[in-house]
């Protein structure tokens, strides 16, 4: 059984067709890439999967259950988490409290167990010394890691990562990539990454979905995608006929 099945999901905003019958299947413990030019509908697709937006039609099966239209907080508790562009964290709360909120969503655990889990996540992302620092006083890379740790609080089986690379130096990018790989390997989490930086997506994804104008135009292994005509056309426009490949 697939971990996530998106079936013919469509979403309109007034006259704009943000998503048109998008379908994709996601397996367990893999890293996927979701790419496409600006305005392709990647963030919209994420928001629909997460529960922030309701799809106009289609089904979204997570672990076999249709979660389309369910409220976001219930979806998170089921084990579907996400991080957002520009590292959204609770700015007025400490790093510890940020992660604690994610862990608390699991429910009944004792305070001691919750604290243990928070410390474990602080360790994973390397923010142990900053645990009492307010999120607004952390640097951008630190906030991105905090965002990840917060999302991991509920031990999600699926993690959606929306453009985590912008604003990071090459070393920091490498760190984040390693972190994501570790999340997959150690926690068994499936990760779907939306990214614009091609070398990052190509180097870490095992399978890639490509969106353009709200439609899925291609999917496949990274190698195939770079050679796919439709994908190249989507990014570079029609006048690529004369480029040697």
């Amino acid at each position: 059984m697939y971990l996530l099945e998106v079936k013919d999901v469509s979403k309109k905003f007034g006259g704009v067709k943000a998503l048109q019958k998008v379908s994709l299947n996601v397996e367990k413990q893999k890293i996927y890439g979701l790419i496409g030019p600006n305005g392709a509908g990647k963030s919209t697709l994420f928001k629909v999967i997460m529960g922030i937006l309701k799809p106009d039609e289609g089904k979204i099966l997570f672990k076999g259950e249709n979660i389309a239209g369910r409220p976001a907080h219930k979806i998170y508790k089921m084990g579907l988490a996400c991080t957002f562009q520009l590292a959204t964290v609770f700015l007025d709360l400490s790093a510890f409290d940020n992660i604690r909120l994610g862990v608390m969503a699991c429910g009944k655990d004792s305070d001691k167990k919750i604290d243990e889990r928070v410390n474990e996540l602080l360790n994973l992302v390397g923010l142990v010394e900053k645990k009492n620092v307010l999120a607004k006083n952390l640097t951008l890379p630190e906030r991105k890691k905090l965002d990840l740790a917060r999302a991991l609080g509920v031990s999600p089986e699926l993690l959606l990562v929306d453009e985590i690379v912008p604003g990071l130096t090459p070393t920091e990018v490498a760190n984040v990539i390693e972190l994501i790989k570790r999340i997959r390997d150690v926690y068994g989490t499936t990760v779907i990454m939306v990214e614009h930086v091609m070398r990052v997506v190509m180097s870490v994804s095992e399978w890639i979905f490509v969106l353009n104008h709200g439609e899925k135009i291609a999917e496949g292994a990274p190698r195939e995608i770079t050679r796919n005509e439709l994908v190249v056309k989507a990014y570079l426009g029609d006048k690529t006929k004369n480029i040697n490949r």
Partner: protein
Amino acid sequence: MQVKNILLLFLAVLLLVPVFLSHAPYYFRIIIMLLFYIALSQAWNIVGGLARQPFIGVAGFLGFGAYMTILLAKLLLLPPILTMWIGGVCSLALAVIISPILKLRADFLAIGSLTIPGILYSITYNSEILGSCNGIAINPDILYSLPLFYYLGLILTGVLCYIFYRLQKSDFGLRLAAIGCDQDLAEATGISVFSAKFMAFLLTAFFTGILGGFYGYLMLAALPDDVYNLFWGIQLLLICVIGGIGTVYGPIIGGAIFFLASHFIQITFVELHKLFLGIFLIMVVVFFPEGIIGIDWKKIFSKLKG
């Protein structure tokens, strides 16, 4: 040990205030009103400070509590000191009924919340039974003693400060703080945002209703222009902001500063006090948007030292 002794001394002074002020009813009433403002701000602090929901229409609960307290006192022939608690429950019921308003956000909630006291004002103003523009009054023959109001006010203030303190440290308080920071992120982190806002809203409404009853009892009357005045919400917001919004000491410090400042202004500029109060408020909002705690004391001290 030192701190404990100072606190005990402070507590003793607090408890003995009526003794000192027994022959100065004017100042006694001022102190009672100060306690009232602190308690009222602390109640608002729950939904407005912790959860950062700008529900400025809090006069709706204050007035409703005041009116219900006095009405029930007259109808059931019970003393207001008992009916004020029922006034609180009535405000709670009102809060449940209007709770869908919590789906509004930020500015829309702020403006939208003003419709509550507005509607209640209209209903009250136009109804003979409720005394229309003259309001309703309590028979002054009942038990009326300033020390009673003082101790009652002290208890209410103490209870509200304690509740806020415990709330802030609780898991529920953390969720409210998260909602205050970023509502959408809170929702995406497993917090049922509407439920949490709803609970905070009920708490604020309940205590505001009780305090409304307290106010009606103290004034021996409830007048629509007074208890449904939209300015209440703005006052409470400012008190919390001045003292430090979302903190337990915020209403205490802010209440003291605001109350003393507005009294000083009222005494000094009898004719134009509202104008100067307005100027004071604008200056606070423009120059000290984070209140007392936002002031960079270190910078000021180092500048003074030269």
